[in-house]
């Protein structure tokens, strides 16, 4: 029994907005990174749904590549977080604002 593609997209949208709002509201950098992971995955649902809908493997391949890039991103972001935490144990992202114009 086929589930309509619109349902998947709705789930994807809801999950994405959850991640986005979380990114904007939280101040712990690690939690923010997890919010970003949520957004990646929301995108992945949409890709996979479209792949199924159009019967095209390219969407799935793209999900695979997104996962890979997300892994790279997470590694780098966590490295930055590690650097920041070494400097001071208690980190609020709003404290890291020296790069303003």
């Amino acid at each position, binding site marked *: *029994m086929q*589930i309509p593609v*619109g*349902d998947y*997209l709705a*789930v994807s*949208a*809801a*999950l*994405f*907005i*959850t991640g986005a*709002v*979380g990114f*904007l*509201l*939280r*101040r*712990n950098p*690690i*939690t923010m*990174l*997890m*919010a970003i992971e949520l957004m990646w*995955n929301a995108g992945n*649902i949409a890709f*996979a749904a479209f*792949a*199924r*809908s159009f*019967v095209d*493997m*390219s969407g*799935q*391949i793209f*999900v*695979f*590549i997104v996962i*890979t*890039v997300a*892994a*790279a*991103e*997470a*590694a*780098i972001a*966590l*490295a*930055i977080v*590690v*650097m*920041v*935490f070494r*400097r001071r*144990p208690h*980190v*609020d992202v*709003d*404290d890291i604002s*020296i790069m303003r114009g």
Partner: protein
Amino acid sequence: MVLFWICTVVLLLTGIGVIASRQPVHSVIGLIVNFTALAVVFLTLSADFLAMMQIIIYAGAILVLFLFVITLLTVGNEPVERGPSRLSFQTAPSVAAGLAALALLALGVRNAQPSAGIALPADFGSVASFGLQLLTTHLFAFEVTAFILLVAVIGVVLMAGRKEVRF
């Protein structure tokens, strides 16, 4: 069908849990459940290989990395949000913008076309067909991704391996 709706509920609940919990460790646990549910969603989309990847790479590797960082650096810390916020005008607009985006997306999704109704090939989403596509049609993207990973590895080693940090 039922499976999909169960997964949806789990996905949304754990997603909210991830961004709402005070302790990062709780967030990671929420995220693990979230990703597992996501793998099931992939299965309903006949993306078998992706479901495996989701479990192995995301839940297995990336989230373990998160856990390591959390346990190494922040155990025993007060949650950050206890302190006063610097950004006075952030929460309300963020929620408003999020809701607006959600509403617009819902509007867009409502217009989504129904599926083409093409019969699925038997091997759709299988490891074999996935590998064939990845290493033939999408070989270039594959190579570029490999290169990105290499760059990321070098960057992480450079940054995390440094003794003194200045910023």
